[in-house]
C-alpha cells in the first residue's frame, strides 16, 4: 500500500534522509527505529506532506502523493501523529475528537452554517462517532475533561484516538510511548495493538525497543538518514551494524 523509492531530503548540504526505500503491505505494523537524529521524524514529515522531498517517490495506494498538501494526503487515508503531544488545548477531549472527525462525515461550510436537518443529523453522527472512539481507546469517563486536566498517558491516547477518528488506512505514529511510565506504556501499547488488530496498517517510530519489538512484525533501522537494516525484530536484535549504531555510532562518525 505504501511504496517509497529513493526518498531524499537535504537540509542545506546535510542529507537528513537519503535514498530511503520502504515498502509496506496492507495490514502490517512496521517499526521505524534509529538513534536520535537519524531522520525518522523527517521521514514522517515527508510522507505526510509537511516537508517536500528533494528527490524520490512516494506512492500511496497506487498514486504519487509528493507535492500534495498535508490535508489532502490525510484525506487519502495517510494520517500521522506528532512527536510532542499536540492537542487543541482549549477544548475538552471530546471536542478534540469531534474536530478530528472532520473528514467523515464531511460537512460543507454552508451545511454547517445553515443548519439544515441533514446537517443536524451529521452533527449527531459526529458526536456518536467521537464517543465511540473514546470508548474504543478507553477514554471513557474522561471525555468531558479539558485537555490540560488529562493525565499524560491519556493525552497521548487522545492523540492517537484523534488520528483514528480521521479514519486512517495507514497510520504513522511518532513516538507514542515517549516519556511514559510502565503502566502507561502497557496501556498505550494495548491501544495501538487494538487499532492494528482492527485492520489499520501502522508505521511506528519508537525509542522504547522492548515495546517496539513486541508490537511490530518488521523493523527498519535508520542511521544518519540511511537505512542500515531491515528485518524481523529477532534479526534486528542480532544485527551488528544496528548494535554499532546504537552503542558506538558517535565514535565511528567522528
Amino acid at each position, binding site marked *: 500500500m505504501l511504496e517509497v523509492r529513493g526518498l531524499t531530503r537535504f537540509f542545506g548540504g546535510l542529507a537528513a534522509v537519503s535514498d530511503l526505500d520502504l515498502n509496506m503491505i496492507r495490514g502490517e505494523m512496521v517499526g521505524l527505529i534509529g538513534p536520535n537524529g537519524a531522520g525518522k521524524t523527517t521521514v514522517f514529515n515527508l510522507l505526510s506532506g*509537511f516537508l517536500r522531498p528533494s528527490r524520490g517517490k512516494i506512492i500511496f495506494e497506487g498514486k504519487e502523493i509528493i507535492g500534495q498538501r498535508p*490535508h*489532502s494526503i490525510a484525506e487519502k487515508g495517510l494520517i500521522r501523529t*506528532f512527536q510532542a503531544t499536540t492537542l*487543541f488545548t482549549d477544548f475538552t477531549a471530546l471536542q478534540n475528537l469531534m*474536530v478530528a472527525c472532520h473528514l467523515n462525515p464531511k460537512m460543507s461550510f454552508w451545511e454547517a452554517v445553515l443548519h439544515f436537518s441533514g446537517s443536524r443529523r451529521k452533527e449527531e453522527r459526529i458526536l456518536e462517532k467521537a464517543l465511540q472512539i473514546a470508548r474504543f481507546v478507553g477514554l471513557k469517563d474522561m471525555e468531558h475533561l479539558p485537555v490540560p486536566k488529562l493525565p499524560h498517558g491519556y493525552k497521548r491516547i487522545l492523540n492517537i484516538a*484523534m488520528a483514528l477518528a480521521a479514519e486512517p488506512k495507514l497510520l504513522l505514529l511518532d513516538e507514542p510511548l515517549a516519556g511514559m511510565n510502565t503502566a502507561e506504556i502497557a496501556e498505550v501499547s494495548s491501544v495501538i495493538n487494538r487499532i492494528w488488530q482492527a485492520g489499520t496498517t501502522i508505521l511506528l517510530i519508537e525509542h522504547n525497543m522492548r515495546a517496539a519489538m513486541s508490537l511490530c512484525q518488521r523493523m527498519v533501522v535508520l542511521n544518519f538518514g540511511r537505512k542500515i537494516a531491515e528485518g524481523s525484530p529477532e534479526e534486528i536484535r542480532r544485527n551488528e551494524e544496528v548494535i554499532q549504531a546504537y552503542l558506538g555510532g558517535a565514535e565511528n562518525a567522528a
Partner: protein
Amino acid sequence: MNRTKFFKPLGYAGLLILVFLAPLFIRQSYSLHIFILIGVNIILACSLRLIAISGQMSLGHGAMMSIGGYTSALLVMKLGFSSWAGLLLGGLVAYVVALIIGYPFVRLKGIYFAMITVFFAEVVRLVITEWRSVTGGAMGILSIPRPNPIVLPGLLRFDFTSRVHFYYFALVLVLVTLGMLYAIEHSRVRVILLSVNQADSLAESLGINTTRFKVLAFSMGSFFAGIAGAFYAHYLTVLNPASFGFLFSIYAVIYITVGGTQRFSGPILGASILTLIPELMRGLKEYQPLVFAAVLIVTIFFMPNGLVGLLDLFKKNGKLRGHA
C-alpha cells in the same frame, strides 16, 4: 438555570424593542448619528472577530471598508447602479479582494500576517490617492447620492432625507450581519476555526484544509467590512483616502480587544462603549487615540479576556458563592 432561560430571551427582546423605538425618544439628530456610528463599528468589530477567531489579526480592516465604500460610490455615480446593488457589490468586491490576497497572506502567521495587512491597507490608500481620474485622488468623492428610496405605496416611504431613515437602515444592516455571524458562531465552522487557531499543523494532519478556512474567515470578515464601508459612504456622502485610515483599523482591533474575543457579545460591547466614550467626554475628543491607548493598556493588564471575560469571572464567583 430555568430562570436565565426565561429571562434571557426576554432581555434581548426588550433590548431590541428599545433599539427599534429609540428614534422616538432621541430627538437630537447628532445623538442619532452616534448610534449609527455605533452600528457601523459593531459590524466592523464583529467581522474582525471572525478573522481573529481563525488566529489572524488584521490591522487593515479599514482598507476593506475603503474598498467597499469606493466600489459602491463609483458604481452608483459613474455607472448608474442602484445604491442597493452598490452596497452588495461593495461587500462582494471586498470579499473577492480578500480571497485573492488571502491565499498568499495566510501563509504568514501572527505578527507577520498583521504586518502585511498594514502594508496592504497602505497600498489601498495609495492606489486611491493616485488614481485621480477614477477616485478623485486625495480630494476624494463628494456628494455621493443617498440610497435609493424604499417606497411601499400607502404604507411607508423611506427616502433617506432624515437621519431616522439611516438609523433604521443601519439597524437592519447590523441585525442581518449579526444574524449571519451568529449562525457561523453556533456552527461547526467556529470549532474548526478555533482548532486551526490553536494548532494548525494538527488540524492540517487531520485533513482540515487550514489555508482554506483561514482565507474563508478573512474574506467573510472583509465582506461585512465592505458592506459597512459602502453604507458609510452613502450615509456621509463624502469619501476620501483618509476616511478609513490606519487609526480606524487600529480602533477596530481595540474594540474587540477591550470587548473580548471569546464571546460573540464581546466586540458588540467593545464597539458600543468605545464609540460612546469620546462622545461623553467631548472635551477629550482631540485626545481620542490617547484615551483609547490607555483603555487598551488597562484592558490588557487587568482583563486579558476583555469586558466579557470580566463578566464571566463575576458569574463564576457568583456560582461558587451560591454553592457554598
